[in-house]
């Protein structure tokens, strides 16, 4: 009963980018390779290529996130696309407009691509399955489900620093349970052949059956980061304190906060990553965040190239001649 992957077109090319789940290693490598070619564009006099000229990309953000929306906007503009930013928030839903109504209205404006962020897991899948056939959908974060472009920019950063994934040991620290970033990272790391993916967290911040995600589970930070090549710290939302998941930020930092001293357990050339924005003194101290191992700012600039790659690959499948090929 294997259904066709909604993300791929009939030629197996990337039509939507909703999740890492179900994509093959070759596809992820193609995204990384294409992104590699786009990194140069941002360093030129004219930071723009004419690839998506005349296309309209709609940033449809039901959750506010200036950072992520901006990187998608910059990526779209560097591809010469026209960008429509819509902060839908709760406004249209309070007016009684359903998500489907919103979609149909925007379709009528001849949008070619939706970049969607929504608080419901599965929102991007919903958009992709109801959108008109010529439209591509990119998931910019849906509920606790997936954030595939963030995961791919992290993979890009790791590959830049470490080369191959085989032989690498990567630890992800923090709130795995609620993190769409962690879910996508774990899938991407495993698909790309990473030797060992570890998650480090107390049980209240882990899903019921974490091993089913293909990871090794640690509850102790120093034990978990021993000899790893990459440490990925996750953002801890303040509201986790109120839901009886953690006693306090103080205790969390005592147990899971990354410090220079603790980082010594990792490999000497280990890199430290964080999807941002950092809570200094909660997930890590400033010495680590601003230290030589931190590649956090690189993640941001690579994010643009990765998003350019995904946008151009998915828009390329709208090609009319695709069937003739």
């Amino acid at each position, binding site marked *: 009963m294997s*259904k066709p992957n*909604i993300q791929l077109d009939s030629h197996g090319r990337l039509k939507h980018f909703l999740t890492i*789940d179900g994509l093959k290693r070759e596809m992820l490598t193609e995204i990384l390779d294409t992104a590699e070619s786009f990194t140069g564009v941002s360093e030129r006099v004219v930071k723009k290529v004419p690839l998506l000229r005349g296309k309209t990309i709609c940033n449809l953000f039901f959750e506010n996130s200036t950072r992520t929306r901006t990187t998608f906007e910059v990526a779209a503009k560097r591809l010469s696309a026209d960008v429509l930013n819509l902060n839908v928030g709760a406004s249209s839903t309070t007016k009684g407009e*359903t*998500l*489907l109504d919103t979609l149909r209205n925007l379709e009528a404006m001849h949008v070619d691509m939706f970049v969607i962020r*929504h608080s*419901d*897991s*599965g*929102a991007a*899948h*919903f958009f992709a399955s*109801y959108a008109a056939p010529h439209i591509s959908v990119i998931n910019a974060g*849906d*509920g*606790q*489900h*997936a954030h595939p472009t963030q995961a791919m920019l992290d993979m890009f950063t790791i590959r830049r620093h470490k080369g191959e994934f085989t032989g690498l040991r990567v630890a992800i620290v923090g709130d795995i349970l609620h993190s*769409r970033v962690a*879910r996508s990272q774990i899938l991407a790391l495993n698909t790309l052949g990473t030797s060992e993916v570890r998650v480090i967290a107390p049980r209240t911040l882990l*899903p*019921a*059956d*974490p091993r*089913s*995600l293909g990871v090794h589970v640690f509850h102790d930070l120093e034990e978990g980061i021993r000899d790893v090549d990459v440490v990925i710290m996750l953002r801890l939302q303040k509201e986790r304190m109120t839901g009886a998941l953690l006693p306090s930020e103080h205790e969390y930092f005592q147990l899971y906060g990354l410090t220079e001293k603790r980082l010594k357990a990792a490999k000497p050339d280990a890199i430290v990553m964080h999807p941002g924005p950092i809570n200094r003194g909660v997930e890590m101290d400033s010495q680590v965040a601003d230290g030589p191992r931190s590649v956090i700012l690189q993640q941001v600039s690579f994010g643009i190239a990765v998003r350019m790659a995904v946008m151009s690959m998915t828009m390329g499948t709208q090609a009319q001649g695709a069937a003739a090929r």
Partner: protein
Amino acid sequence: MSGMKNSIQILGGRLIDPANGIDAIRDIYIQNGRVLAIGERPDDFTAQHTIDAAGLIVCPGLVDLSARMREPGQEHITTIASETAVAARSGITTLCCPPDTDPVIDSPAVVTLLLRRAKRAARARVLPIGAMTQQLAGEHLSEMVALKRAGCVAMSNAYAPLANTLVERRALEYAATFGITAILRPEDRHLRNNGYAHEGPVSARLGLPGIPEAAESVAVARDLALAEHTGCRIHFHLLSSGTAARMIEQAQQQRLQVSANVAAHQLHLTEMDIEEFNSNCHLNPPLRSLADRDALRLALAKGVIGAICSDHQPLKADAKEAPFPSTATGMAGLQTLLPLTLKLVDEGVLGLSEAIARITCGPADILDLPYGRLTPGSSADLCLFDPNRHWELKRDELPSAGRNTPFIGWEFQGQVTHTLFEGRIVYQSASSNQTASSL
């Protein structure tokens, strides 16, 4: 002679009537809405109408312990008339209606209204279940005795939680005083905590907040303790977990008066069926693991679970057109109650007669109803089906408010050919050319 009114004979069918232990070729004679005789034709009987049931299985009309008809309150979705018509097509002749209508079934006036409208539609029997607390708010007891006298067959708080264990204790004690059965949907709402799917590998992968199995078992443990304490007859509604089924089995062994039902879909689907956010699998309780499904099947076979219900919940056409967590829960289940039950026989879960018992006399006995059996003198509610006919559930053939089912495209064996309710043919399939005389 023509003096006999409303007389029907059903000849040559294989009668399966589990309540009376019958599984044999038997003729059935019906008069004035009641079963007149089984087997031998009474001397003075003349049939106005004959159904040739050769090759068909004849069984009591199905009894469904939970079917929402959205009336009163949401007649724009479905009505008693539309849903009893669907029931008739599906071989179901008795439908129990949960109290979460609008207005809530918490006063005799609403019961009377519901029964009057059901009588007018008259394609199936509708039996209201009364609200255990006023407005289902979980605080103040409803007038259970008045509700019972008006026609409610049990009391339940539907999906709404009771405020606390003290209210639950009092409600069960009061119900026990007057011999009223309490129907409980066991769930600890704190453990449910905004969950949308079974807490397990699938919810972990899809990032859907999970509902742990413990949300059900913790509630069952509490309810069983109160059942023992109060002596109330408790019926557990819509079991979803193996742990809960095993706890109920133990309680039954200790002679507690507890029974349980399960929704037909819960015996076939698992968390895996959510796949890529299939909103038709957004259900309450959630679809659980394969191990849970198998444990429920075992409990059904042992008789720990005495009834399969449809848990029919028709929805507006767009109620499932949203991201998974934003969709309404529930599926339209009337049309698949019999086929999903017969599928259990195919899959070797239980025998045909036992399977039929779970959708006829099983549910009837739980609520002490005189239906689901074909004893002479009982209401002539019958379902006839062709056990060899293959068919596919097609979206286009479903009413618009009944398309919220994950079973579209499934193939089934066994299809209803005739349904009789109180001695009248309320459904006859187009392909069964048995129109000897018109009604």
